[in-house]
Every structure is written in structure tokens, then in C-alpha cells.
């Protein structure tokens, strides 16, 4: 099945699932209230957004200088920096580190870049044990599923479903309260941090000025992952740079507010090296893998370059009416929602993924929600333009050509109106069925009956009467 028919089939199925819709809507209503309260606490959320957009613009439009500064400083403090052009190269670099270390068990904290390059599958195939430590990621890993949402991976599951899962997979689930279930995961994970050979993390920001990687999280799993195992590996997209240390004073609270309605996420941690002389603990070795994976192609598109400003907060997913109805898995992509629809065609092919940009009402709530002011709905439209420019839809073009001829000639036009009135009852007989050439449209829509008397007729009559 092609990506588009898969999308259509799943979208139809999920949209009809009222329980799913209700569940997601309830979860996101709580988020909205909290986010609005936190946004309201800012003296000027709008100026903060503008500044964030300008800062990311500066970062992305001088990306080469920032990456050079970043790596120079990371390396000066003993960090090993690797560069990967493709997902396959990144997987190979990471697997090679694990082989060198003769590692068996890897404890992992949440990283969408690792989902992007399908890292877990590759490592498991090589015989490594990979344990996701973020609670939501742990749950979807047990279910052999991809994350439902880039920030809330397991938001589609009820406590009952999670209890059943824990009972089946772990043989431990005292009740279905979120509290008890969280403690089950805590117990399982504690020893893993201590015994794992390698700790793996993603990253939210990379600071060029000071040579640091910044990680944002709530649970403390990333803190432990970066503290206890002897070797640490961090995978980061090259677009994550920020120019200055002090920029974090703005980006950390904005990420928390836009992403989860929190004033600050529980742990915001900046790493500038492996364990340094005189420090009590920390990894002996730290490997940072910088990933391109077609980001430079997006960079080369000046019109859409600002899609690289994304800080993956998830705000645009949360507010998107399409996401809320079709759900995260329907997209079939690593990054879903509006931002996924914008960047996936660049990362994975325009013609195969253009349907995501068509699945939008262009209402623009995503653009308004975005903390770095990415003009998301403009880009959705731009993707549609690019798609039809590179592969024109001939039937559609032909239809418009004929329409143009008819609409330009008054005699054709009034004939068409009369014919429309005459033939409409015939269409009703086949409406929505396989015989209907316009069924994609008419299956779920009604065309109002065409009146026998057209506006022109009525006008002429009226003028005569006067």
C-alpha cells in the first residue's frame, strides 16, 4: 500500500473512533489551560517569540561557523565529535562505539533523532540490548510501537491498557493508578542505570559559544543516563545550535511553556564534556554524533529554511485539528502534525509525502502556536506548490482548462447551467458510488440542488417588470 492510501485508510478509521477523539481532546484540554496560564505570565510572549525566531535565524544562517565553534570547544575538553551525513552512517558510528566498548546493555533517554534513524532496530539486530528509560518511550517500546507524539509518546493509551501491558510484559502492576504504574517503571529502571555499559541521549540545544549540549526533561532519566554509565553517546541534529549560552535564558522557559504548559521543565542540563579532573562522577568518554540526514537539503531551500528553526516543542501538534482527529500514528512519520507535514517531504521525498500537506485546512493555528514563529501553514501551501510544479496533475489541469473555456464564453456558460439542472438528478443516482467520477468529493458532501431559474434569468425578469 502506498503511503497516501495508508494515510487515508488510517485517517478514516481513527476519525470514526469517537473514544480516541474524546480521549485525545481531554488530554490536550489540560495542556491548553496550563499553557495559556504560563504564556499569560510572560510580560511579552510575542516579543519573546520574535526574539526566539531571530536567534534561530542567526543560528541557522551561520550554521557552519557555529558548528565549527561548538566542536572545537567540545573537543578541547575531551569529547569525541563524529559527523554523519546519513542515518546509516550515524547507526554505524554508534554501533562501532558499542563494539569498541564491548557493550551489551544501552540505557537510552528520549531522542527523536534516534527514532528518525531507526537506531533501536539496528542495534538490536546486532545483539545489543536497548532500554528506553523515559516512561512514555518505555511503554511504547514494550508495545513495539513508535511514539504517538514527539513530546508525549504514550498519550494515546489509557491507564488500563498500560496496566495490562505491564502485567503481561513485566508481571508487575499492583493497580491502574498512574502513581503505581510509574513506580513499576522506576523499580525496573533503577538497576539498569547502574549496570548499563553505555548511556545514550538526544539533545535539545547545542551552544556554540561555550561548547555545550543542553537536554530538557522532566523525569530525571536523562540526568541518570548521563551520570552513571562509563560511556555516553549523544545524537543531535545539526540544526540544534544556539549562538550564546545566555540564549537559553529565553529558550528554556519558552520550550517548557509552549511544549507542556510548564514554567520550566524539571531538569534542564548543560553538558560540556565527559568527567573532568576533580569531578566525582560522569562518563569517562563522551561521543557526540552530529547528524545531517538531509537537513542540508532543507537548508538549501531558502523559502523553507526556517523549518530548521524548529525546537520540537510539539505545540503545533497539540493545537492541530487534523492531528487531534487522525492521531499521531496515522502520519506514518517520525515527526507528525504540522511540522511533520512540512519537513517530512524534505527528509523522505516530496511526491511520496506531499499528501500530508494536503491534509490541512490551512487554518493557521499551528503558526500561531509556534514559539519560534515558523510560518507553518505558509509552508504547507508551499509544499503543495512545489509538489505540483515538480509533477503536475494532468487531469486537474485539463479540467481547469475546460472550465476556463466554458466560463469565458457566455453562450457555453448558460448552456452549462441548463445542462447542470437537467443532469443533476442523474448524478444523484450514482452519487458517491464507483460510477461517480467526482466521488472523492461527493462521497461526504452534498451539492445543493441547482435551481431551474438562474440568477441571470431572475435578473432579466426583474428588470423587465420595472
Amino acid at each position: 500500500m502506498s503511503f497516501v492510501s495508508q494515510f487515508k485508510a488510517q485517517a478514516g478509521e481513527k476519525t470514526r473512533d469517537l473514544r480516541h477523539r474524546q480521549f485525545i481532546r481531554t488530554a490536550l484540554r489540560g495542556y491548553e489551560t496550563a499553557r495559556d496560564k504560563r504564556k499569560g505570565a510572560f510580560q511579552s510572549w510575542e516579543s519573546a517569540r520574535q526574539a526566539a525566531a531571530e536567534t534561530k535565524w542567526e543560528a541557522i544562517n551561520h550554521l557552519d561557523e557555529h558548528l565549527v565553534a561548538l566542536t572545537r570547544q567540545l573537543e578541547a575538553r575531551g569529547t569525541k565529535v563524529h559527523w554523519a551525513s546519513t542515518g546509516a552512517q550515524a547507526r554505524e558510528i554508534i554501533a562501532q562505539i558499542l563494539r569498541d566498548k564491548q557493550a551489551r546493555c544501552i540505557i537510552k533517554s528520549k531522542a527523536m533523532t534516534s527514532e528518525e534513524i531507526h537506531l533501536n532496530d539496528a542495534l538490536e539486530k546486532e545483539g545489543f540490548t536497548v532500554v528506553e528509560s523515559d516512561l512514555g518511550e518505555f511503554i511504547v517500546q514494550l508495545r513495539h510501537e513508535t511514539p504517538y507524539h514527539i513530546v508525549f509518546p504514550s498519550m494515546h493509551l489509557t491507564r488500563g491498557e498500560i496496566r495490562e501491558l505491564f502485567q503481561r510484559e513485566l508481571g508487575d502492576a499492583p493497580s491502574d493508578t498512574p502513581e503505581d504504574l510509574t513506580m513499576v517503571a522506576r523499580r525496573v529502571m533503577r538497576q539498569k542505570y547502574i549496570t548499563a555499559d553505555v548511556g545514550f541521549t538526544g539533545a535539545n540545544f547545542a551552544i556554540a559559544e561555550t561548547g555545550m549540549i543542553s537536554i530538557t526533561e522532566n523525569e530525571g532519566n536523562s540526568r541518570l543516563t548521563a551520570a552513571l554509565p562509563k560511556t555516553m553517546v549523544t545524537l543531535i541534529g545539526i540544526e540544534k545550535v544556539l549562538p550564546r549560552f545566555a540564549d537559553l535564558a529565553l529558550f528554556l522557559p519558552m520550550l517548557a511553556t509552549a511544549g507542556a504548559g510548564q514554567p520550566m521543565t524539571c531538569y534542564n542540563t548543560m553538558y560540556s564534556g565527559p568527567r573532568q579532573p576533580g569531578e566525582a562522577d560522569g562518563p569517562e568518554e563522551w561521543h557526540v554524533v552530529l547528524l545531517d540526514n538531509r537537513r542540508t537539503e532543507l537548508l538549501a531551500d531558502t523559502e523553507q529554511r526556517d523549518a530548521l528553526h524548529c525546537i520540537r516543542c510539539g505545540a503545533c501538534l497539540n493545537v492541530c485539528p487534523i492531528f487531534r482527529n487522525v492521531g499521531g500514528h496515522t502520519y506514518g512519520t517520525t515527526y507528525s502534525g504540522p511540522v511533520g507535514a512540512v519537513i517530512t517531504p524534505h527528509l523522505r521525498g516530496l511526491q511520496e509525502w506531499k499528501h500530508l500537506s494536503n491534509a490541512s485546512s490551512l487554518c493557521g493555528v499551528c503558526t500561531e502556536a509556534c514559539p519560534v514563529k515558523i510560518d507553518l501553514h505558509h509552508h504547507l501551501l508551499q509544499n503543495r506548490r512545489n509538489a505540483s510544479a515538480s509533477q503536475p496533475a494532468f487531469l486537474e489541469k485539463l479540467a481547469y482548462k475546460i472550465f476556463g473555456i466554458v466560463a469565458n464564453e457566455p453562450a457555453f456558460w448558460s448552456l452549462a447551467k441548463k445542462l447542470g439542472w437537467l443532469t443533476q438528478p442523474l448524478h444523484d443516482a450514482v452519487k458517491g458510488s464507483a460510477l461517480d467520477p467526482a466521488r472523492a468529493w461527493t462521497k461526504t458532501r452534498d451539492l445543493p440542488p441547482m435551481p431551474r431559474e438562474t440568477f441571470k434569468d431572475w435578473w432579466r425578469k426583474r428588470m423587465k417588470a420595472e
Partner: protein
Amino acid sequence: MKKAETILNERDNILGRIREALKASAPLPGSHGGSHEHTPAGPPASHAREWLPAVGTSAAEQFELFARNAADLKADFQLLASREELKAALIKLRDAGKWQRIASHGGELTDFAGKSLGLPVTLTDRGYDVQEMEQCDAGITECDALIAQTGSVAVTSRSAGGRALSVLPPHHVVIARRDQLVADLPAAFARLQEKYAPDFPSMISFITGPSRTGDIERILVLGAHGPKKLTILCI
């Protein structure tokens, strides 16, 4: 060997593609479609203070704000008048939590805490046994700053006994001095930069409340992987 070489070379390939791409310039933020005007906001370093949540002007207001934020975050904040009060507060925590053993690091305030508590201590300064720390009932650390604006505590691997001490034991107790309170996030970053640059500790962490998760039905649970309790004692 061949493979390692090709991978190493990707640095130049990636930088080359970036430089090639950047030869063409992109529209400024807010100018897509050519329609909407925008006024530049300026760099966060000098202006963020004007946009972030208000913090008040006096120290008293800021202590109050920190206390309010801590309460929202379900952290326990106590402003104490003297060493005697600090000692009493620690002993109260010890008895309430039935502590048997604590983990800590060398420092003027942490040494005082250790003496006040009279419990066996795992010190991290010269390396430590992880299993032993995992068994401790509390981790007691100093810090670099308290941030009124967000109720956060800034710790580093140098000031707070390494990376694990503030997250592995189930109860994290921070002992801070009054002059460590800063008004807002820009002030906290400035203070860290002043104190450490260019030789930063390998880890700097802003801790905002006890560890938490909302991954099950978006319902808040404390103590996901890190501490279930966070106490901030300020003298």
C-alpha cells in the same frame, strides 16, 4: 579502516553542503509571503528580562516569589534565620523520613549538615560506590543559585558533588545561602558565566521541582526516576 576514513571525512562534506546552501540568503523571520511587517526584538542576552515573567524589585518580593513557585512545583522551601534553625530543620527531615544513611559532598554547609545529622555519610568527593548511594535515603548538596522567577535551583558537577548525587537518592536536600538567590533566568546565566567561564563544570543543571512525569493520561506523578522529594533550606 576504510570505513573509519570515509566517516571522518563527513565533517568536510557536511560543512561544504552547509556553506553551499548558505550562499543564498533566506527571508528574515516574519517576512514570509512578503506581507507582514516585523520589528526586530533584539538579542535575548540583553532583552529577555523585559519579556519573561515579572519578578518584582525587592529581595523580599523575590523570596516570596521563589516560595510561591516552589509550592506550585511541590517542592518544600524553608527560609531559616540561623544555623540552629537549619540544624533543627535537618533533624526534623531525618526523623520524618526515618533516614538511616545520607549521601553528600564536602562543603561548608554540607559539612555542617553532616555533623548536625549524625548519620553515616557516603561522600562523593573522592569517588563512591553507586550501589551504596542508591541505598541512601537522601542526597544533601549545596548549589550555585536559586532563581526566583521559576523556583529553580542551579547546581553543577563541581558545586553539588557530581552528577548523580542530586538525582539518585529519593530525597534531594539543597542547602543555599540567601545571597545565592537571583531574580531571573538571565541573572542566573550571567552568574554562572561570571563564576566559571571559560572553565565550566562538565554538568550544569537547573532543577525545577522534584522529578515528575505525566506520561500516563497526562496525570502528574512525582518521583519518576529522580527524587520524589525536593527540599530547599535557605539560610
